[in-house]
């Protein structure tokens, strides 16, 4: 049997493992569902309360922010990787992964798959609840196009999670920086409000990372918001981030694991 088939089955086994662990915590889905409903409710009433310049109607701002909420679940999934690695270190399961023929690098990459698939589901549910409970109007003709763009977005976001996972392998605390980074990126990525409201220098910074491009394109496809520049340019930007950062982050992860093995700290936590 070829190595590729066995590796494919190992990837699938990691997804199944994470699904089984997830399902063993029965209240988790309910808790996340409630958080989603309350967040949507909060922003629905904020959109009705506040008149936002640049938006034609209250519904326009609500649609804007719902896509932001959907995207933040994707961002969280990518930044959950360092915490997942840390949990493996604490449980002593990381050394089993390092010592397996499948190996640590492929295992860490495989660990990203369930959270990413899960974030897809959460993003879909966020949009669906927005539609059903609060009358969010989706642009159904372009909604199918949002799926490949969402996958590209994940590939562009993933390197950030892998870089923090590398940090966790080396200094054991890579997850500490993720909370403030998510908060920062949600501001400069324009998840809750347009970046045009931000100071000029922050607007420049917001264009230097993939989150702004992703939110622009997905808003355009899902709720018909105008996109700054062309959609094609934004998609190319996302593809460029993924093409450059993904191999680089995997190399850095490999380097981090080797550093841990050389220092003898690979299984410390």
């Amino acid at each position, binding site marked *: 049997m070829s190595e590729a088939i066995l590796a494919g089955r190992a990837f699938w086994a990691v997804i199944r493992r994470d699904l089984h662990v997830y399902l063993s915590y029965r209240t988790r889905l309910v808790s996340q569902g409630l958080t989603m409903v309350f967040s949507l409710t909060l922003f629905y009433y904020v959109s009705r309360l506040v008149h936002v310049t640049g938006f034609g109607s209250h519904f326009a701002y609500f649609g804007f922010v719902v896509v932001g909420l959907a995207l933040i679940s994707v961002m969280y999934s990518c930044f959950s990787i360092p915490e997942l690695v840390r949990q493996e270190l604490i449980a002593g399961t990381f050394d089993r992964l390092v010592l397996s023929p499948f190996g640590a690098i492929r295992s860490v990459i495989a660990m990203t798959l369930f959270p990413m698939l899960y974030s897809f589901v959460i993003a879909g549910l966020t949009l669906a609840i927005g539609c059903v409970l609060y009358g969010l109007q989706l642009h159904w003709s372009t909604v199918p196009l949002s799926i490949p763009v969402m996958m590209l977005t994940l590939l562009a976001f993933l390197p950030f999670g892998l870089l923090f996972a590398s940090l966790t392998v080396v200094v054991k605390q890579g997850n500490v920086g993720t909370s403030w980074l998510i908060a920062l990126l949600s501001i400069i990525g324009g998840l809750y409000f347009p970046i045009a409201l931000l100071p000029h220098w922050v607007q420049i910074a917001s264009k230097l990372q993939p989150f702004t491009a992703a939110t622009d394109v997905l808003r355009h496809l899902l709720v018909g918001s105008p996109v700054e520049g062309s959609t094609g340019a934004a998609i190319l930007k996302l593809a460029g981030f993924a093409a450059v950062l993904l191999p680089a982050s995997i190399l850095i992860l490999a380097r981090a694991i080797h550093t841990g093995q050389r220092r*003898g700290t690979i299984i410390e936590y």
Partner: protein
Amino acid sequence: MTLRSVEATMPAAAGEETSMSSVASLRLGPTDALPLAIRGVSKRWRKDQPPVLDELDLALEPGTATWVGGRNGAGKTTMLRIAAGLIEPERGRAEVWGVTVRENRVRYHRLVSFLPAGDRGLYARLTVRRQLEFWARIAMVPGDQFRARIEEALDTFQLRELVERRVDRISMGQRQRLRIAMTFLPSPETVLLDEPLTSLDGQGATLLRHAIEEVLARDGTVLWCSPSGEHVDMPFDFRWELENGKLVRA
């Protein structure tokens, strides 16, 4: 079946302290390849302290079981971790059939299986069966052997009655049996065991002994480390003590 004893063929009289280097050199030629060879391995944790392993040599031949003892902190676990390819030595190399982990990581880890000390390394929320299935996939057990290996592990280590129970709901001894089952499941040629008797009852120790005998019967090799003074009812072919970073006859 009993373990083969080759104590009589050892070059030094019982009780005499002999560096393992000389013994190893008798067995190793430039073209020799063994199930496990540790050659000139040194490891130091801090620069201002003596090395925990000091140009250590150890050669394990096919079909033999070796015990390495030593005081707490003597370096037994460090030696096993280096042999398993988990950590790197400062100097020297560990080879499995002539290949180091750096040269061919996948092959190395297909041949070697390591049971770390303690009770960690299990997913608490998975059932015993799912734990074994997951490990078999990660160990890249071929598809046509996948189901048979899991069933065999369940039988060999008497885990069948626990198969649908979650790991966090079974006893420490049962968890240790599961950990050992995972170690033997991929049918490794070189088995490294760090204090494998932890939490095991007499029956569990017997099951472990049978599993070791099967490895030796197919010309595999077993390296067992545990603290000096621990009673290990296992007829090893070779017994060594790790002292000051070197192996001496036990």
